[in-house]
Structure formats: structure tokens, C-alpha cells
């Protein structure tokens, strides 16, 4: 969702609490732990990550090995979540699909936050023509619906897991840039930073020591939200056939194949849907918890 509750340019001038003396980290941690759903989210996502990492050892099957004798078996003791049209174990594919989804989510936030945040900070800090150019470029990127932009970039790069990460990452760069710019802008105007500038501290020093630590909170919240969006976007791309390629297990791709059997084999559509929804849900919970803990505006 791209619903911003604030308009495009609304730096909150009351600003962020700066340099609080009592350990903000511990405060935030306490705040986060009070958010019960967020804790549940962390536990479940951790479990999912572990089972993705150890997927090869958790089931006796391979995700891509065909077993035509056992095709389209409903859930049984042998195949707890049934098998697909090539007789592949759905549970195994779900676990291996988690690898793709988590990998994509992780890669996307690294690219988006890693490029978007510096762009936004530089833009907000230095202002002027540089700011105007960067932000209009970001506006232009934001003009496209995320899925459409991702589709166009995938067309350019060709279908591949790395390319999914790259294109979805690119899509979310402007979101980070905007948030970072808005917050940097309000910090820049705060007495604290203006004082440092006036005292002649080098720019990079101010950015690294004063700006970044103070915007990291909102960025982390956005990371959690973006992670879950990336999971959905990967699923959508793979659903359209442009994302992860067969026979690699991906929830979105498996869901696309399941469409053919929606009347005959409910388990094929049900489990990928569940996996997508559950992981997005839990990431959202974590995001909510982080917002409560780290976003000063939400705290009030």
C-alpha cells in the first residue's frame, strides 16, 4: 500500500528527540517487547528462516525431483501437504520457497535502504539543485505503480531470482529516499545541527554522527514494511511468470501453477497462499512493534 498519512512534503518540525541521555536502545527494546504480536512475529519469522536454511534436512524429498507416480496426492502421512502435478512434495517446496521469499525480501531492503537512504540524506542535507534533481527523479520513479515498474525492469534484465531482487529493490529506492530526506530536512533545521554547521564541523561528520543515528529508527520501521511488500511483489512477479523460473520453488510461481487445479486440488493453492499471507502478516506485526518502539511520532 502506498497510503501516506502525511503529504509528500511534510517534515515534522517538532522534530525528533535528539541525543537523549538515558539508553534509547533499551527503552526501545522494552517498548518493542510490550508489543505482544511483534514478539510473536519475530519468533515465527525466525522459525521460518531456520526452516528455510535447514530445508534440505527437514523433509526426505527434493523440491525439484519429479515423482510422476505420486502426482496430485492430497495431504497424507507420506506427503503432509500433498503433492503437485509432477508429484513433488508441497511441504518441501514451501520450505524451499521460503528461501526465495526471504532472500528476495532481504536483498530488496539492502538495495532499497542502502541506496535510498544515502540519496535522501544527501538530498535533504545539501538541498538546492542537487536536492531538486534527485527528488524529481525519485518522484518520477514513484509515478509508476510498483508492480508495473518491476515488470518493466524484469523485461530489461530477464527473468531470474537475482533480477527480481534488483528490480524490486530499485522500485523501493525512492520510498527510502523520500523518508530519509524528510527527516534529514527537519533535523537540518533543528538548532542542534544548525549549531554544528555554524561551528564549522565537516559535513560528513555531521551526517554520520548527528543525522544518521537520528533517522535510523524510522528507516528500520520502513525496512520491516518494505520486506513484507517485497515478498508480495516477488509473488506477484512470479505469478505473472516473470519472476523466479521453474523448477525453482517459489510461492508465487507455485500459486500460478495451482490456478490450473483450483477445483481439483485445493492444497496446491491453499499452502502457498498461507505461506505468503503468514510471512507478510508477521513482518507487518514486527513493523508495528518497531514503529511503536522507534518512531518518535508514533510514540506520542
Amino acid at each position, binding site marked *: *500500500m*502506498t*497510503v*501516506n*498519512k502525511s*503529504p*509528500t*512534503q*511534510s*517534515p515534522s*518540525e517538532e522534530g525528533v528527540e535528539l541525543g537523549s541521555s538515558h539508553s534509547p536502545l533499551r527503552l526501545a527494546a522494552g517498548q518493542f517487547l510490550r508489543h505482544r504480536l511483534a514478539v510473536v512475529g519475530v519468533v515465527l519469522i525466525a522459525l521460518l528462516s531456520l526452516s528455510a536454511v535447514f530445508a534440505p534436512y527437514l523433509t526426505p524429498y527434493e523440491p525439484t525431483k519429479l515423482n510422476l507416480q505420486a502426482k496430485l496426492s492430497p495431504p497424507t502421512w507420506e506427503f503432509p501437504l500433498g503433492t503437485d502435478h509432477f508429484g513433488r512434495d508441497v511441504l518441501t517446496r514451501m520450505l524451499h520457497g521460503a528461501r526465495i521469499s526471504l532472500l528476495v525480501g532481504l536483498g530488496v531492503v539492502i538495495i532499497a535502504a542502502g541506496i535510498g537512504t544515502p540519496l535522501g540524506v544527501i538530498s535533504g542535507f545539501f538541498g538546492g539543485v542537487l536536492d*531538486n534533481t534527485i527528488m*524529481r*527523479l525519485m*518522484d*518520477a*520513479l*514513484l*509515478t*509508476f*505503480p*510498483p*508492480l*508495473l515498474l518491476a*515488470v*518493466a*525492469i524484469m*523485461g*530489461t534484465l*530477464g527473468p531470474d531470482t537475482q533480477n527480481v531482487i534488483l528490480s524490486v529493490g530499485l522500485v523501493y529506492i525512492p520510498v527510502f529516499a523520500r523518508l530519509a530526506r524528510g527527516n534529514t*530536512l527537519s533535523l537540518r533545521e533543528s538548532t542542534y545541527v544548525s549549531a554544528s554547521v555554524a561551528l564549522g564541523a565537516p559535513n560528513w561528520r555531521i551526517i554520520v554522527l548527528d543525522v544518521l543515528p537520528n533517522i535510523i529508527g524510522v528507516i528500520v520501521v520502513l525496512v520491516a514494511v518494505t520486506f*513484507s511488500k517485497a515478498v*508480495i511483489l516477488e*509473488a*506477484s512477479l512470479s*505469478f*505473472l511468470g516473470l519472476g523466479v523460473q521453474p523448477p525453482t520453488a517459489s510461492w*508465487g510461481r507455485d*500459486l500460478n501453477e495451482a*490456478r490450473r487445479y*483450483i*477445483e481439483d486440488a485445493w492444497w496446491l*493453492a491453499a499452502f502457498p*497462499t498461507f505461506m*505468503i*499471507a*503468514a510471512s*507478510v*502478516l508477521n513482518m*507487518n506485526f514486527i513493523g508495528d512493534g518497531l514503529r511503536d518502539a522507534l518512531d518518535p511520532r508514533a510514540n506520542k
Partner: protein
Amino acid sequence: MGIWTYFLRRLVQVPLVIFFVSIIVFALMKVTPGDPVSIMLGPYATPETTATLKAKFNLDRSLPEQYLLWVGNLLQGDLGASIRSQEPVTDMVLNRFPVSISIALMATLLSLLIAIPAGVLAAYRRNSLWDYALMGFSTIGLSVPTFTLALVLILFFALKLQWVPIAGVGLRTLSDGFWPFVLPYIIPVVGLAVTTIAELARIVRASMLEVLDQEYIRVARAQGLGNLVILRVHALKNVFIPIITVIAIIFAFQVGNTITIEYLFSIPGVGSALINAVISRDFPVIQGLTLVVGIFFIGMNLLADILYAVVDPRIHYN
């Protein structure tokens, strides 16, 4: 700085953004392998016929040249024609935009009609079963991709119950009768609306709670005004502020989100046209449609800002 200066400044930025949009589109095309001609000719392409066709569509010129040609024609009001189907892009915009817009509009209206009462009720009966149910629905609704929702709706209402057809948007006009015209829209619209209902209901509930906590409501309550009166007169008025500001954004989101829906339901909208154009490297269509979509989104963002500024005078313009 006054509100009008602010608008003016925003408006001045628009051409720059559009310029960047067209540059991005062109840059994407430049690095994209494939050209429409070899796709059109398929396996029987010969270098000779490929060259002839390419020259015909100016594809043999350099990219900057192609870009300038396109801009030149654009300034004369000509968006060009599809290389694939020869359909003028202007016609495509005129035929397809209304379809996407009407679906998005219906989904937005449906979201408002459901989310506002539901959110208000949830806030008013805070911590009731209804509140939990709505928040539960909203949380799940935000986690499920639109295309999955659409699949579930297809399964039950089109395949099992056969109440509505799956495909057929754009096939009939109102002159064929009300129901034949409306029925094909139902699943796509409902599928699209679920996400926004979930989002909107949350916003409504949160702002309603904020309002209910405010001093004057408490005073009104203390004065013994009936609950319903308080709700109607004081609270609702304030709830509409955040809603009005997000309507434009929700609407724009719906237009963007129709892509998977249009793909799934064979709907002749902008999204499906764009995907097809990207797939077949139909440059004039990609350029024309992204430009129009881009302007539409910029307009919607501007509208959102204006609405925000109008309904919430507290905002500052830097």
C-alpha cells in the same frame, strides 16, 4: 509562504517529473533486448524483411533521434500508433483508461462505503467482538496479495456458484441491460477493494478513536448528550479529514493495482495493455501509456496535497 505559492511551486515541478518519466521509460527501452519487429516476424524473419520493417517504424534510427521524433509528434498532439496492432495510442488511451478508471473508482467507492461505517463502529465499540473481528480482517486483508483474493473469489462465485462470469468486462455496454453490464465487474472490483477496505478501516478507526478521546467529546458526553448525537455531530466531522486526504491516493493505488486483476480477468484496461506492450516491446504504446499513467499519478498526488492543505489548515509550507 501562502497556500497558492505552494501549489504553484508544486505545479512547476510537474513538467520536470514528466520529463524524467519519459527519460526513464526510454532508458529502460534502450537497455532492453528485443525489438517488436523480430517478434512480429517470428521464426520466419529474414534479415532483409526485418530491416525493411524496422525502417518503417523508425527503429533503425538512434535512440536520441527516436526520442526527439516522439517528443516532436507529442507536441503536435500525436501519441503515435502501436507497432503491433497499428491502433493509434490515443485511441488506446481513450478506450482503455475509462475501463481501468471505472474499476478503480468502483473499488474506491466500495471501500469507502464499507470501511467508514465499519471503522466508526469498531472505534465506538472499542474492544468489542466487532472491533476485534474488523481488525483481524484488516490485518489479514493487508497480508494477502490481490491476485490470491481474486482466485478465491473466482473459485466460489464464478466456478462453484456460477453467479457471475469470470471474464467479460468491456464486452457489453449498458444498452445490453444493467445486469449483463455490471456482473463481470463484481469479482475484479471486490478483489481490488479488499486491500483498501482493510487499510481504510484502520485509518478510520484510529482517527475516530483519537476524536472520541478529545476533550469536547468528553464534555459533550458529560453534558448527557445521547451517544448517537455526539457521534454524528462532532466526531464524524473530524473523521472525514484524514479520509478525504487519502481518497486520492487510494484511488491512484487502485489504478496501479489493477494490473494483476486485469491480467487475470482479461480486462481491456491500461494495465493489461502495458504488460502486453512491455512483453512485445511495442515502444510507442509503452511511451504513450506510461506518460498518461504518469500524468494521472502526478495529478492524483497533487490532488491529495491540495485536499490535505484545504481540510487541514495547520499544515506549513516550507
